[in-house]
């Protein structure tokens, strides 16, 4: 049997809105994934370091403070610096459409907006990990 998908869910910056990230954490855990949650108020460097140390398949970053266009470039720069280019990065939260497009261009594999059904998040992450293939 394949080992379960490992995911780090993270809150970056000063934003304290954690309703969504906790719902997602629980849905993924109920779906049999290994879920690590960073807790609040982390820096981009901290979450990338944790993602690499924990050897996760997916790094999910939740933001409801509008700072996505500051945070994600820092995350990708750090991932590149660490040579972790195969990390699947997913964003979640409240953001305008133009940022969704820009984030995908930057390398974010999926942007999960508010009210995305938990089942859909589970299946989308499984799909992304399957597409990436074994490491």
């Amino acid at each position, binding site marked *: 049997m394949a080992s379960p998908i490992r995911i780090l869910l993270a809150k970056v*910056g*000063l*934003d*304290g*809105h*954690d*309703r969504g990230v*906790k*719902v997602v*954490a*629980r*849905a993924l855990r109920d779906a049999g994934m290994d879920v690590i*949650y960073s*807790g*609040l108020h982390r*820096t981009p460097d901290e979450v990338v370091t944790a993602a690499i140390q924990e050897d996760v398949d997916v790094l999910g970053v939740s933001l409801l*403070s*509008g*700072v996505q*266009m*500051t*945070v994600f470039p820092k995350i990708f720069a750090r991932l590149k610096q660490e040579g972790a280019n195969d990390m699947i990065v997913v964003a979640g939260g*409240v*953001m*305008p*459409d133009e940022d969704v497009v820009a984030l995908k261009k930057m390398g974010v594999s999926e942007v999960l*907006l*508010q*009210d995305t*059904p*938990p*089942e859909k998040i589970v299946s989308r992450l499984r799909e992304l990990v399957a597409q990436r293939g074994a490491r």
Partner: protein
Amino acid sequence: MNQMVDPKSLEKVAEEVADWERTEVAAFLRKQRERREQFFTTGDIPVKRVYTAADVAHIPLEDIGLPGRFPFTRGPYPTMYRSRHWTMRQIAGFGTGEDTNKRFKYLIKQGQTGLSTDFDMPTLMGYDSDDPMSDGEVGREGVAIDTLADMEALYDGIDLENISVSMTINPSAWILLAMYIANAKKRGLDLHKLSGTIQADILKEYMAQKEYCFPIANSVRIVRDCITYCAEHTRRYNPINISGYHISEAGASPLQEAAFTLANGIVYVEEVLKTGMEVDKFAPRLAFYFVSQGDFFEEIAKFRAARRVWAKIMKTRFGAKNPDSMRLRFHCQTAAATLTKPQYQINIVRTALQALSAVLGGCQSLHTNGYDEAFAIPTEEAMRMALRTQQIIAEEINVSNVVDPIGGSYFVENLTSEYEKRILEILDYVDANGGTIKLIEEGWFQKQIADFAYEIALRKQTGEKPVIGVNRFADEDEIHDIETHPYDPKTAERQIARTKRVRATRDAAKHATLMERLVATARDDRQNILPVTIEAVENGATMGEIVGALKKLWGTYRETPVF
């Protein structure tokens, strides 16, 4: 048994209901089933097919009472909106003080009657705009305030003796209060004429919104200091807004929102009483803040029950004598978490209905959300639409001509009393298990909130909880045609320039002395931290410097997340 129905007619009512169930209802159900086996409120309280006089017979008539009279179920004031409409208080905040000042003046011109200020994340969390933690966040989701100079720009040209100003801020609230007072002094205003509020409800931060700087005990002491300071120096100012809104937005049920908020209120009263201040000296200025969610009648019952329970707590638990101490007054905001990105225009309808339940529930001030808030912070146009929604409710549809028009509704009176009972059960549980602060430390409230949030997410997924445009009547091909609030990329630069100028031009020796005095005052929790903070900000101390110095003394807070 109350006097709404006399016992004889009550028996007749019960008989008639039973007969009706056997005949009309049974016959109809054979032709057409009901949509569900059982119906519940959003907060999971079962509701019956119909309510009659029999369902209110157990309610003591004096619990329903009259508006402006204990226990205030029907409203805090005897004439309510017949005298004056609720304060229309649209929140605003972005960029620098000057940017938000322009929005305030626009809103006042549009007929808004109170101000409400949203601060950016660094300000909310006690960081200066040039702190590395503030990168990307300066002026983005609210206005950036580092120094008194920013505060002066924010309220420039606004008549602070005649318009009430709310500041949505918590762990660093006392610093903004200090700046607000310093600004008023500088302008030569009468401090006893200042009206408005800082939110300063730190306990719900640990429960729900998660904006905090210091450990719980130190934070609660600051709240206490704000309450006692205002009781002496700014008699019309509300030093706290005890808030359920964020508890609800974090996922709590309406019942949990009401109960947890009142639990927090009890802690603040207890803390101030420990200083020896009489309850009637400060309790009249304790203000509340609730959400108006989507379940129309449940929300009305929630507001009415919260007023009744608080009145009884103040009278019996704390021995208040002044009715003002028992009179729960609240600000209300429609529920941001119910707004959808798909078919975003329909958010106007959601907001209007939520606003109507706030008004029928007797709110004292109201913010209606912008239709575009599932995208970003609202545009001027979205705020104008939201304000017009309130104005229609106030002026076109006559709901404000009668006080508590829902009073006496069999259903709502029954639900109000059910709410009272269930709120008291939760408060008893909290008391029996070591009190609010202990249960926050144990993550009990956080777990309750997370559980309900998860439950709601699953109900939306199955469609059990319909959300129009999302799980009902969704439009897959929708393209959003919307212009969202623009963020000026030069905001941080403009903001930081002023902060640096203030630091460079202030009296450095005096600053050092004041910061030492601040820390010494903080160390001795019998002292009030406000006076020295006012002096420090008058001399140009920044928010980040003040919070930083106290973090060194008190430490910070990191929660163990529960989900």
